[in-house]
């Protein structure tokens, strides 16, 4: 796992230099000086996780189809992110491609037919589980994670907290495949977070954001921890619900513009509902403070996810 973390950091460091020369960059619009920052840093997470999983499968003969299916789902979703970063895929195409990326996971979970929910209990989905539940879970989680983003350390921080909790719960519930997949992703995101934390030296891009959403859902499905995954996604779900209120839920930035930076460094929200805009509206907020508070929120949902799971098992 340490190899994954070190590889992720080293690759992100390499990409932060090379991508500037290649023109794979974006403007950090939440700073007064608006620096140019390399994009698509999530590629380091993707490559580091892939390297770690190859080493793990070579050393540990017990890893079978389920682990491979989890890795393939997350990796293919990462590749969709790469394509999105380079060619700006349409929302519909992205959704279809990510659903297709979960095909091997659907196949490997064909005998899993039910999901436990609080109050409701065990819901017998039967054949709908591999056909509908798995692809919908992966694509919804990935796209929601992609929307709560855009600030230094936010995506990688949420990824570290949520994947960390899923890894812990997988280990506690005895799901080795889920725990190992989670540990690989966790260390990869921690290595990346060192360079992505405020002030960021590299951005994750859609590669980094889509992948951890798919990762949370994949671990949840592999380890039968669907409800924990749902609870961990609640801040992103709230952000998604708020954005649905506006006329163009997937195109607000084109319609309303971006968040602005005031001369004192505090952020002025764009004119559409969103979770980060709520924090900016209720009190003067600088970027780092905003990220810390959203991570506190994610941490509290992580505690709820652990509590709900431990009460259930």
């Amino acid at each position, binding site marked *: 796992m340490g190899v994954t973390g070190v590889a992720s950091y080293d690759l992100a460091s390499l990409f932060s230099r090379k991508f500037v020369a290649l023109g794979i960059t974006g403007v950090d619009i939440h700073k007064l000086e608006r620096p140019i920052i390399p994009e698509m840093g999530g590629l380091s997470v993707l490559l580091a996780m892939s390297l770690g999983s190859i080493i793990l499968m070579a050393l540990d003969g017990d890893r079978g189809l389920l682990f491979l299916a989890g890795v393939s789902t997350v990796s293919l979703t990462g590749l969709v992110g790469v394509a999105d970063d380079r060619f700006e895929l349409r929302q519909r195409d992205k959704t279809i491609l990510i659903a297709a990326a979960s095909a091997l996971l659907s196949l490997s979970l064909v005998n899993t037919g039910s999901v436990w929910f609080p109050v409701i209990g065990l819901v*017998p989905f039967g054949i709908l589980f591999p056909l509908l539940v798995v692809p919908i879970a992966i694509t919804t989680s990935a796209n929601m994670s992609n929307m709560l983003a855009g600030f230094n350390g936010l995506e990688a921080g949420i990824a570290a907290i949520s994947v960390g909790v899923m890894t812990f719960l997988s280990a506690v519930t005895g799901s080795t495949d889920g725990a190992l997949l989670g540990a690989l992703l966790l260390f990869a995101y921690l290595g990346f977070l060192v360079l992505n934390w405020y002030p960021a030296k590299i951005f994750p891009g859609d590669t980094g954001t889509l992948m951890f959403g798919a990762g949370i859902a994949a671990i949840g499905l592999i380890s039968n921890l669907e409800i924990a995954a749902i609870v961990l996604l*609640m801040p992103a779900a709230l952000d998604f619900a708020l954005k649905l209120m506006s006329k163009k839920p997937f195109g607000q930035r084109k319609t309303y513009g971006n968040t602005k930076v005031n001369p004192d460094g505090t952020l002025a929200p764009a004119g*559409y509902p969103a979770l980060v805009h709520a924090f900016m*509206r209720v009190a003067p907020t600088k970027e780092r403070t905003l990220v810390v508070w959203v991570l506190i929120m994610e941490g509290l949902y992580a505690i709820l996810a652990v509590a709900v799971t431990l009460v259930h098992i």
Partner: protein
Amino acid sequence: MSPSAARASLIALSFVVLLVSGLVTTVVWRFLAPLDPLPRAMLSLVMFVAAYYAGANLIFWKAVLRISPSSSLPQTN
């Protein structure tokens, strides 16, 4: 309200939205008792999503606009 209290109240509000959605789901789940388990669960889950969306709009965002000192900012369109 201090900045930290305002931000903490937002987080608390998000849990209120989740709690209310959970309560609505519980009521619907009991109301649909005559149905088979799968349609009963599916309808309850759909109600959860609908209640959460409504809660985000009617509880969370309304409260944000009320707490917000920046009343000149554009509101929900």
